[in-house]
Each structure stands twice: as structure tokens, then as C-alpha cells.
């Protein structure tokens, strides 16, 4: 297998404008199997980039190939979506659904084979640690549990490309640790792109990281390389935070 065939995400010069505002400005990015961290301050363009990768919005210009296919065409886009998992930044839910029903609903929408839906749903719920709440209605769950139910819907189809937008927001420390383990497990078989501004998540789970600022990627490398960016004056409590701050300061200066 050559390097190109392993790339599940290939982005070249990707731009997205909303009116006069440019949310993503000429991003180049390649990601293969493993966990890929997308860092950046609020408004950096992470969510828009992720939504384009999720085929929720189309790019204004540039090239986007996901799982070896161009999502611009209806057929390839449908095939990508069948193998895609996406957790939006503010995931919604139907309050009256139980956890099982909610995940089953998405399994059906993701065209999981009818014969395996039940098992796939149970597995996804188990993986996010909600097995004992499977029959509870979503309106009765805490914020962290809701987030986990939404993660379950994203992974119910065993996706090859997983996009998580701020997945650990609202999770308690123990849940975040569990979730990072899940990320590493998913990353063994799929490309997992995690957008976050919590650098410790990146340090714990990501093999590669990109730092976005004002619609552009200003740093791409391993977490160790990001830590190495830190100089003596950068702010932060951990080496990774200091590297993040230094890289960002350098881009903004």
C-alpha cells in the first residue's frame, strides 16, 4: 500500500467563505489512519473545516478527497457518508428517544445492514459506557451522558473516517480519560479527526496535530514537535500548552 492510498483525508487549497467572511482560507491537510488533532482558538475555522470534511457544507474552492473519493458527486458523497461518523460541536438530540432508539435511528439513517443494526447499536452504546442507561430517555440524561449518546450515534456504523468537534466538552475528567481511550481504539482502524481547544486531549490521544488560526493551518506536526515550539516566554501550565501558545503567538505576530 503506497502512502497516497492510506490517506483518508486529502485537502488541497480548501477555502470556504460565508459572504465576505472567509472561515477557511486555503487549507492543505492530509491524514491517514490514527487520531489527528485540530487545535486552534475560537473562530479559527476548525468547525467549518470539519463540516466540509463531513460533507455538511461544500467548499467555495479547493480540492477535497475523503476516503479516496470526491464528495462533490452525489454517488461518491453517499458512499463517503456511509463510512463517516460525525459529532457536531453542538450535537442535538430528540429528548423523547431512549438512548437505544436514538442510536438505532442513526444506524438506520447510516444504512447499517438491517440484520446487524441491533448488534451495532448495542456495541456503540457499550463503547461509550451507557449500557446501563440504554432504555433511558435522552431528556433524563446529564450533559455528559448526552454527549456520550451522541458519540455513540457517530460511531454506530463503524466509520472509517470519524470527525469529532469538541467531543470532550461537558465530560467530567473520568469520562474524558475514558473517551481518550476510545479515541485511541478508534484510531487503530480509522482516521479520527478531533477538533478541540483542550490541548491535553491532543497530547493524550493524537499522533499528529494541526494548529489553525484565522482560517489557516499555522502548524502541523506531532505533539512532541508542538511542545518543542515553546520558548521560555510562552504561557501555559504544561509543555503542550506552552508549545500551543508559542506557535499561535508566532503565527499572529
Amino acid at each position, binding site marked *: 500500500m503506497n502512502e497516497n492510498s492510506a490517506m483518508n483525508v486529502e485537502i488541497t487549497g480548501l477555502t470556504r467563505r460565508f459572504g465576505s467572511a472567509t472561515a477557511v482560507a486555503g487549507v492543505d491537510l492530509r491524514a491517514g489512519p490514527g487520531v489527528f488533532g485540530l487545535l486552534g482558538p475560537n473562530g479559527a475555522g476548525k468547525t467549518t473545516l470539519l*463540516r466540509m470534511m463531513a460533507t455538511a457544507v461544500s467548499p467555495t474552492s479547493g480540492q477535497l478527497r475523503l476516503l479516496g473519493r470526491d464528495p462533490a458527486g452525489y454517488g461518491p458523497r453517499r458512499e463517503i457518508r456511509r463510512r463517516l461518523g460525525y459529532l457536531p460541536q453542538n450535537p442535538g438530540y430528540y429528548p423523547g428517544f431512549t438512548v437505544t432508539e436514538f442510536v438505532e435511528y442513526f444506524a438506520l439513517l447510516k444504512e447499517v445492514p438491517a440484520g446487524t443494526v441491533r448488534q451495532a447499536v448495542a456495541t456503540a452504546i457499550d463503547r461509550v459506557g451507557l449500557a446501563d442507561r440504554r432504555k433511558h430517555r435522552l431528556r433524563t440524561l446529564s450533559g455528559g451522558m448526552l454527549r456520550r449518546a451522541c458519540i455513540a450515534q457517530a460511531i454506530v456504523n463503524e466509520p472509517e473516517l470519524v470527525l469529532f468537534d469538541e467531543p470532550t466538552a461537558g465530560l467530567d475528567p473520568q469520562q474524558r480519560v475514558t473517551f481518550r481511550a476510545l479515541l485511541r481504539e478508534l484510531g487503530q482502524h480509522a482516521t479520527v479527526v478531533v477538533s478541540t481547544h483542550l490541548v491535553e486531549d491532543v497530547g493524550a490521544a493524537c499522533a499528529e496535530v494541526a494548529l489553525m488560526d484565522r482560517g489557516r493551518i499555522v502548524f502541523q506536526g506531532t505533539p512532541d514537535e508542538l511542545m518543542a515550539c515553546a520558548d521560555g516566554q510562552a504561557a501555559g501550565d504544561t509543555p503542550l500548552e506552552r508549545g500551543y501558545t508559542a506557535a499561535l503567538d508566532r503565527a499572529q505576530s
Partner: protein
Amino acid sequence: MIAVTRMLRLELRHNAMALMVPVVVVLFWFTTYRRVMAMPPLWNLRAADLQMYSVVDFVTPLTGAAAWMGSRESRRRLADAVLITPRARWARLLATWAATTIWALVAYVGCVAVVYGMTAGQVAGGGPLWWPAAVAAASLPAFTALGFAAGVLAPTRLTAPVTAIVAFFVLVLSTELIGHNGHSYWQIAPIVSVAWNTGSNPGVATFYPYLPDLSIAQVMFLAGVAVTLLGTLALVGESRAVRAAAGGVTAAGLAAAATAVLLVGTSAMDPHGMMRIPALHDAANDRPVQFTPVCSHAAIPVCLNPAYSAYLASTTAALEPVLNEIAGLPGAPARILQEAATYRVDSRDGEEVRPTEGNTNGEAVYHLLLPVQMLGPTLTTAQTASQVKWTDGPDIVANFIGAGPGASQAQNAVAAALTMVLGRVSADPNLRADLNGEAPGGPGPSELGGLIRGTAAQSAAERFAALPAQTRRAWLASHLAALRAGQITLSQLP
């Protein structure tokens, strides 16, 4: 198919319309059931009003629930999450719409089953009219499609109440535009079940089959509207093939709806009080319904259509005094037979024409039109009998004696005398009450026959009426021919 069934099951379990079913049932009970069941037990009356009022009951909660469901993905911030799934958007939306519609249909079918079931236990003749029920049923998918499309296209929290209110007012106000024009396109509104100007009328669809012409056009229109709205939802975000198919479906729906409206524009009231659309009309429906009348055992049998058998006893009681007077005499009718009302099709208000006396199968028959067959307020059994008594009783006598304008004073006096008998003998307490002036429109005995109090004719009439019944009959038997020929004078009356 299994996946679709599972999706539908989930949608049915979590559909806003399921929560609205109790509301709709209460509304139906309050405004439709009580009104319909208070009507005389006639299929035509109850079916027509069931269509009109049930559609009004359902439209607001149904359209609102559908709009709420249509806007659900956006309101619940799930638009992105469902958008990026491979299942076609139209399939996802269709499942939600179908669940909403199924709940509405379940509620509606339950309501109709109760009304028709109760009615079946009360009516004596005829069968349920299914076309009015079908039109109301067809309006449900159309209204859910309307609300759902509004919810999808404008997914705000205000969409549901606004759509529900607008749908209600458009539906109700559309009939205001029908006016007196029998050709109005607005008769396409699904709350129109009969000629709008006559309203629900017990005189129609009993002696002649219910004309489904208007109903067919309405179902065609409603199906067209539903298909158009649902097709519109698949025009964006789908594959080229799906968009092309959706375009075709939308165009076909539009064509069906437009054709139905144009067809309704050609409608006109037929002589039996129903709307006829030439292009949809089946001539077989012009043939009268065959029935065996139910008859009383009076001196002269009173025979009614089985559907009106509830009125037989009171009608017979109302006419019996007069019938006893003339039964067996030459020229007396052999039967009193109920006839169908005939409508003046050129009349803007479609007033009925009364039947005339004639012969049926060689026997003299008086053709009776019950007041409940005519336009106007719904009458109780007692009110119906009272009107028969004071309208048909004198009419039977006048026909028998030959009284009326141009007749001799003696003829008019005898006719008045026999009519006075109506007010004197009655076994029915309701009819006795009528005579005491409790019934509206009942003439006083002194006014009968058009005779003026204090005249010789009036004195002769009272004198004749005061004779024993056997004496009157004996005199009539021997003098009837001369009386009819105008050869008897007032002074010759006993």
C-alpha cells in the same frame, strides 16, 4: 424494507400527532359527534355533516403537528447530523410525514367508526355513504403534507402555530367565496359535501344514489396537493435521478390538483340536489334507488321510504283523521306515497319542488314530501308531523273534493269541514299540543279552507264538521259526484 419499517416504528412512537390524538378526539366529540348524532338518523345527513365538521376539527391540530414534526431536525439542532447520513433526505422526511399521517388517519377512522357504528344501529334503511368519509380522509394527508412542508422549509418554532391558524382560516373562509354561484371553483374545499347553498339536506341521496362527482374531484385535488408538496421536498439535495423523479411527481400532482379545480368549475346542482360534474358523471347514478316502502295500516296506507320509517307513525297519526273521512269513497287516494324532492336546478337557492298528485301503476296515489326532505332548519318528529298535518292534510282533502280557486262554495265549505276534523281528533299528544298553538305555523281552525269567519260558507262548514262521522261519510258517498261537479249549493249541505 426492514429498515424503513423500523424507521416508521420509531417515528410513530415519537410523533407529535400521537399527542394530538386525544385533543382531536375531544374536539370531534364536542363539535362533530354531538351535532351529528343529534340529527335524524339518516345516512345522508350525518355523512355530509361528518365530512364538513370532522375536517374542521382535524385541520388545526393536524397541520400544526405536521409543521412541528417538519421543523424538528432544525429545532433540535440535528440538521447536520442527519444531513451527513447516506439515506436519502426524502426517505427520511417521508417516514416522519407518514407517521404523522398514520396517527391522523387512525384517529379519524376511529371517529368515523363510532359515528357510523352508532348510526347503523339507528337507521332503518339505506347504507353508509363512504364518499364523504373518503374526502375527509383524503384531506388528512394533504394537510399533513402542507404543515410538514412548511415546517421543513421554514423551521422555526412559530411555523407550527402560524401554519395551523392559516390552514384553518383558509379552509373555513374558502367557502365564503362560493357565494350563490353553483359553478364556483371554491367548492373544491374538502368541507363541501353537498350543494353549498342547500347545505346538508335529508332530501338528497336517499331516493337517488349519492353522486360522487364532487367527492372524486376533491379527492383528486387533495391527492394532487399532497403529492405536489411532498415532491417539492425532494427537489433539492438529492441525486439527479431523484430530483428528476420528484420534478415529475410534483408536476403530476400540480396537474391533478389543477384539473380537479377546473372540473369543479363545471359542476352544477342536479334535480336531486347533488353536485354533478359532467366529465366525472356516471349516468347509472341517475337511476332511482330501488326500495320497498314501509306502510302503515291506516284506512289509506301511508308509505314511506324505509330510511324515513322513523316518521311513519307520527305521519300516519297526523293524517289519519282525514284519511278516515275519505277512505273507500270514490276518488280517494289508494295510498299516500312518499316521493323524492326535486330541485329547481336553475334556482340560485335550489328550492325543492313539491310533487303533484298522480297515478302510480294505475292506482290513485297522493305523493307526499315530508318537511324534513325540504330545505330549512332540522325538524323534530313532532314538528314534521305537525307540518304534514297542516299542509298535506288540507291538500289531500282539497284534491279529493276538488276545492280551491274556481270551486263552488259548497266544495270549499266541505273541504274546510273535513280539514277542521284534523284539529278535533288526534291520538298523538304532540299533535294535540300543536293544536293548542305550540307548534309554529299551525293554522287556527277558523282559518281553514280560506273561509272568512261569519260567512255562510264558514257556517256551513262548521255545521258539516259537527255532524257525526258516519253521517258525513254517508252524505259524501251519495253526493260526491255532484259536489265535485259544482252542482251542490251551500243550502243543500246537511
